[in-house]
């Protein structure tokens, strides 16, 4: 009796695991995408929707103008992020600017602040009264704020740069840190000026990282929903993601699906171009060798100026937005952020004379329910995604099966390339209607959990791969010699050895989930929304203080989780600075 069982276990461990992962990934990633494609290819309704979106009286409004906005935002944000992130990376890695380590740490933080927080903070300063809900700090001080600074494309671009430059910084700083100091000294020996060394040697050598950082920022910006929704919708500036949201919200799902496919295509084309440039060049191979001591340029005269600049960038994108949100959550009038502070928006009870009778967020039963839903969802999804991540990593490294393995690898990486809101639309396409005996999942927490799990997979698989790589094949084989089964080895050997990295990975997934708006805005359950959705709906109803307060709750939770992850990782920061 035991023998066949064990044999079945061995078989499972060698092929079954890969197969099981392939099936799960098919259901989580491939099936929704296939369904959304098929639905828009239905002869009647599908063709109609494509026609409406691409070639009709409506199409400039439905697609072309939002697409142009999306492209403009994507390209500007990519350029801005590379400039800002590259500049800070250069300062931190290659120069003797004071406070390098701290700048390096601060510059990675903005990515942990949800983009709707930055967008709300922008509003609290630059909003003008044009669309109701009162003006912001500057208008309160008597400045007339023009629309282009309050609303629309410019604020959206700036807010997204402030959010995504951290990504470009991380990638470029890692590349700069890997540049062999000898390369630069060899150039110094020739008598080349510092500028010539920067543009002739350093920049070309890190071009791959610059392209990668730019592509990531582009992909993030075109799929972002929160910033254009909060800053653009009030003045009818639409991007593909807000348009897609609008279509689904008003029940024109077919058109929404078409927009989702187009958004995926635009994002994919640009990521593909970046990839093409990288893989097409022979010159990017780095060559190893000893003697890779980092060398720093002495900044000399401009030192303090550059330091002030760097510190300002970090301050403006991390501390200041949080501080503004905090002030704005206390101030009854958005025009005077620092007067008549009250705790009403946090803990006040309903008062008809105040905020149209809305109670403070901690007296709002919706908030309490949103808080528990968000936390539960965050924990459950983080665990599920990372468990899958480890299993997939094990399947990929230990049990290579031709074709199937590469399918698993590519499917698990795919969500990384998919704009969240388009991915959510694909989930509606597949699970919105009953499948055979299974009921429709639209509007259930299960659907939301599935979509978020799929979206977290690329990161979770990366964590899983790092975990598995940490444990060399030898260690696992030594355990296998003792006759321990697969799951026993995982539990007794693999997981204990990799616990720190794993927990850090879990925490980062958790932070990403609770700050997500792009997926949750389409899939949330109306009866129990999530914190991010609650904040968004407060903001779109003009209750900015409440929106800010809820956002701060998310931020506080995120900061604790991020701080814990940073402590667990320990060395990561030093690698960059």
């Amino acid at each position, binding site marked *: 009796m035991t023998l066949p069982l064990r044999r079945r276990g061995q078989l499972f461990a060698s092929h079954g695991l890969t197969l099981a992962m392939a099936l799960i990934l098919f259901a989580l990633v491939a099936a929704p995408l296939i369904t959304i494609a098929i639905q828009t290819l239905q002869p009647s309704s599908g063709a109609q929707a494509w026609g409406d979106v691409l070639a009709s009286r409506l199409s400039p409004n439905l697609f072309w103008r939002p697409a142009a906005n999306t492209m403009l935002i994507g390209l500007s944000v990519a350029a801005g992020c590379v400039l800002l992130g590259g500049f800070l990376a250069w300062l931190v890695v290659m120069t003797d600017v004071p406070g390098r380590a701290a700048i390096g740490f601060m510059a990675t933080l903005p990515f942990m602040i949800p983009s709707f927080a930055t967008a709300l903070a922008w509003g609290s300063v630059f909003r003008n009264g044009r669309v109701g809900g009162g003006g912001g700090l500057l208008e309160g001080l008597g400045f007339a704020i023009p629309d282009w600074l309050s609303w629309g494309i410019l604020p959206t671009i700036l807010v997204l740069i402030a959010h995504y430059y951290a990504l470009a910084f991380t990638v470029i700083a890692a590349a700069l840190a890997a540049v062999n100091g000898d390369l630069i000294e060899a150039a110094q020996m020739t*008598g080349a000026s510092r500028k010539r060394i920067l543009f002739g040697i350093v920049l070309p*050598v890190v071009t791959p990282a610059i392209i990668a950082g730019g592509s990531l920022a582009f992909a993030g910006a075109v799929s972002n929903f929160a910033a254009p929704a909060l800053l653009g919708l009030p003045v009818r500036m639409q991007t593909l993601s807000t348009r897609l949201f609008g279509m689904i919200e008003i029940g024109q799902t077919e058109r929404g699906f078409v927009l989702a496919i187009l958004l995926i295509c635009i994002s994919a084309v640009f990521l593909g171009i970046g990839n093409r440039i990288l893989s097409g060049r022979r*010159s990017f191979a780095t060559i190893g060798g000893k003697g890779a001591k980092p060398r720093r340029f002495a900044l000399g005269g401009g030192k303090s100026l550059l330091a002030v600049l760097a510190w300002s960038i970090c301050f403006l994108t991390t501390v200041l937005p949080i501080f503004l949100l905090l002030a704005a959550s206390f101030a009854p009038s958005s025009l005077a952020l620092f007067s008549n502070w009250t705790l009403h928006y946090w803990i006040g009870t309903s008062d008809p004379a105040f905020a149209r009778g809305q109670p403070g967020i901690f007296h709002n039963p919706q908030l309490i329910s949103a808080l528990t839903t968000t936390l539960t969802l965050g924990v459950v999804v983080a665990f599920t995604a990372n468990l899958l991540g480890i299993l997939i990593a094990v399947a990929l490294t230990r049990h290579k099966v031709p074709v199937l393995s590469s399918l698993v690898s590519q499917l698990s990486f795919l969500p990384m390339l998919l704009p969240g809101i388009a991915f959510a639309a694909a989930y509606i396409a597949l699970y919105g209607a009953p499948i055979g005996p299974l009921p429709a999942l639209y509007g259930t927490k299960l659907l939301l959990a599935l979509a978020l799990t799929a979206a977290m997979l690329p990161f979770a698989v990366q964590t899983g791969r790092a975990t598995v790589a940490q444990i060399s094949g030898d260690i696992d084989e030594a355990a296998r010699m003792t006759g321990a089964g697969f799951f026993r080895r995982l539990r007794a050997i693999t997981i204990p050895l990799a616990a720190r990295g794993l927990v850090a990975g879990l925490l980062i997934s958790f932070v990403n989930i609770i700050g997500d708006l792009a997926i949750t805005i389409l899939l949330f359950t109306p009866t129990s929304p999530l914190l991010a959705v609650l904040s968004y709906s407060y903001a779109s109803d003009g209750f900015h203080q409440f929106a800010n307060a809820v956002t701060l709750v998310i931020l506080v939770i995120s900061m604790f989780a991020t701080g814990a992850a940073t402590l667990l990782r320990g060395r990561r920061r030093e690698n960059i600075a």
Partner: protein
Amino acid sequence: MISLNQVTKSFAGTNAVHDVSFSVSQGAFLVLLGPSGCGKSTMLRMLAGLEQPTGGQIRFGDTLVADGGSGFTIPPAKRDTGLVFQSYALWPHMTVAGNIEWPLKVAKLSNDERRARIKEAMEMLGIAQLANRYPGEVSGGQQQRVALARMIAPRPNVMLFDEPLSNLDATLRVEMRVELLRVHAATGATSVYVTHDQVEAMTMATHVAVMNRGRIEQFDAPERLLAEPASAFVAGFVGTPPANLIPIADGKWFGAIADPSLPGLRGYAMVRAEEIAVTDEPGPRTLQVRLAEIVPMAGRRLVTGIVNDIRITAIADGAARLPLGLRFRLPDAPAAFFDTEGNRIS
């Protein structure tokens, strides 16, 4: 000509290079030899101008290039020097020809002149066929040649090398030694070559500076290092195999075998391997040893035995069988004698 006068370099209070003075004539091949961390690279980088001495002066010919006292320094590019890095430091985004050309461009040489120099340098190193490849696409030995070509194309007067062969395998290393000497002879430049490999020093140098803990232990021609080592450190560092240093206490070998040729001495006696006889008979100055290893070498054998936890190497002829009870017979008098600090006494 390169001359150093009391050159010192300290990093945060500790001296990496301490009070170094020497001079070599134009066209010399100077090797800085010493164990890892002894300050060789720091010396070389001060010659290149990448590092500024904290004390003393460096002169190329009659020109002062660096003065630690006043902080005066001539920047690297104006010193007419070229440097080959241990990692080669080839710029990965430029082709082989591009790598050689870039320094010439920076020096504002004309198009024709650049092309001529590139051709000349590539032909001298035999890499003309690699011109359009990228550094990542050529082998380690070829990368080394590219780095050399890049260094010689601007025709520097002083060529500096920092352990250039340490990343190559043994066969290539021997080949590149010859190549380097050929380039040195063809250019007529003065070379300063850093290595921790005493074989490289012995085979290539006209002058060797043996360094230890930031100081120069001995500055001499290679054969003089073998014949007249100035310190126990030098005696134990150079030579294949290096000489044996046998502890002497109260005028006795190993503190046990009294010898009238060591009247009351304390310190270390230098005994070369070829001065020790391998025997099986007891006798004066003869000790029983425990066999550690035998290395065949050029028809003879290096026999290493252990006495009092000290390894002693002797040379035995190839044919004879080694006796079962192995004994080493020491010479009548040591070739040199060092005090307990390692200073040469006789």
